[in-house]
């Protein structure tokens, strides 16, 4: 009986224990947890942040290459508290994703989507500024660590002010526009989006990532997503260019091309 209770208690406590602050990260020269490195999510949240089975992709001619890989989802509780009109818009987004998903056009991905796209990103950490450089589309943002000025204007990657809470880097992201999505499934937000990100080292080569999403124009309550980010440990790991603008020109401008008369 005792043992049973213990096992049950352990099973309940275990998911929380995974994000406990028992691990102490190596320090930068100024004494802060060192998050520097090249990181990548190993999940399929970019296809759908909610749990989903494998599915055929929109282009049958691509075969397995274009199929949607399955995933457990990254949304805590798995439910997205859409307001009724917003739920309808999400379905519409999915139906029209080939023209509406900003990723199709190589547009900047916004936050938090940049974190879990299937591309690596690099953190360069100084005491004044922490820079996030994403391989996808050369997206970049700088996190103010000294002062926390208000967002001067809305932008694709938003305005990031950071501070440390023990081992955790907490970033408050505001000033996001309404043009980015959460994933290829059409999950979206408005320009009222407010994201609070938390990056916590949980071992030498993994970070626990959590994003609290608040957007009263789209969701009835705040909700959270969380996942693990993995360090690229290859000795020659390096962020390479993925300037995808060149790869979308035919899609975007092809119909405006001069017709070659025969």
């Amino acid at each position, binding site marked *: 009986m005792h043992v049973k209770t213990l096992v049950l208690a352990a099973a309940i406590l275990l998911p929380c224990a995974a994000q406990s602050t028992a691990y102490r990260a190596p320090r930068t020269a100024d004494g802060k947890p060192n998050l520097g490195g090249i990181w990548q999510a190993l999940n399929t949240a970019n296809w759908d942040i909610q749990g989903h089975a494998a599915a055929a992709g929109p282009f049958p001619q691509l075969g397995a290459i274009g199929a949607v890989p399955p995933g457990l989802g990254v949304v805590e509780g798995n439910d997205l508290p859409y307001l009724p009109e917003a739920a309808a818009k999400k379905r519409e987004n999915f139906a029209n994703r080939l023209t509406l998903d900003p990723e199709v056009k190589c547009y900047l991905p916004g936050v938090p989507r940049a974190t879990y796209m299937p591309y690596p990103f690099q953190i360069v950490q100084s005491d004044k500024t922490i*820079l996030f450089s994403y391989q996808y*589309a050369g997206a970049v943002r700088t996190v103010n660590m000294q002062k926390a000025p208000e967002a001067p204007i809305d932008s694709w990657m938003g305005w990031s002010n950071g501070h440390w809470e023990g081992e955790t880097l907490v970033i408050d992201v505001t000033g996001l526009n309404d043009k980015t999505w959460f994933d290829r499934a059409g999950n979206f937000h408005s320009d009222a989006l407010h994201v609070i990100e938390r990056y916590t080292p949980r071992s030498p080569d993994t970070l626990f990532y959590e994003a609290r999403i608040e957007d009263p124009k789209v969701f009835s309550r705040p909700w959270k997503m969380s996942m693990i980010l993995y360090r690229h440990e290859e000795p020659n790991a390096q962020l390479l*260019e993925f*300037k995808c*603008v060149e790869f979308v020109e035919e899609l975007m401008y092809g119909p*405006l091309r001069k017709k070659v008369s025969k």
Partner: protein
Amino acid sequence: MTHLASLFVLLLMTAPVYGQASFRTADGHPDLQGIWTSASVVPLERPASLKGKEFYTEQEAAENAKRVLGMSSWERLGSQAPEHYNMSQYGLDLSQAKVASTLRTSLIVGPEGRVPPLTPEAQKRIAERAARNRGHQFDGPENRPLQERCLIYSSEGPPMLPSAYNSNLQIVQDADHVVVLQEMIHSARIIPTDGSPHLAQSVRQWYGDSRGHWEGDTLVVDTTNFTDKTAFRGSTANLHLIERFRRIDKDTIVYEFTAEDPATWTRPWTAQIQLVRIEGPLFEFACHEGNQGVANTLSGARAAENVSK
């Protein structure tokens, strides 16, 4: 706010040589961090009228600064469309920027002050390229300039050059990287300073592959692995760049680059630019996301063809 009220001309007469940089990161490296502008009142190449004269007198330098800053944005850009290029309404005009003026008459150093002559091979290559595009400038997106396509800005580098407006950049460092983030067009060039070797020759990039090391207080950056699409002033994929960054005081970094490409220029050449500290912040330059230019230009060309049919 008038133009003059926001006009700062820092006359940097000489570049004083300090034995030790007083600006250090917590890691002990020279601290290049901050937001900077490469805005300049001096052209890359020395004007013919100043042939043989590498430096102005102080009075001449002041007169040149006054003349250049007195021009309108569109005069400086050589544009016939002031309504499109009145940068002062956005606070982006050169006259509204901090400018480190120098006694130099050209950014290119040395007695010539000009890009060396092209090799015969390069002349042929560039002429052929121009001939291929002649009459086809409006056929498709690949016929449009890289800048208009939001692929790469001619001034963002490497090598970095002053732009006609908005020459802003930010430098962020950790223990073994220096990042140069250009506002236009949000390119973050991450330069490892850990002694790692260049990428394999098969990996070619728009910004090349940069590796840095510290020589005393100077950051020296070696860049190779370019593509031939980048074509910096006609260069090939074998362009080899060496850049030097040295912070000489609180508000100034002396930036110098040497460009070498035997298939393009008859000899290597070097330019020097002062970067001046500004308050910032940098803004997001979402070039491609707001690009109406390519679609409008191509659809205009198609409409013109239909009319002339």
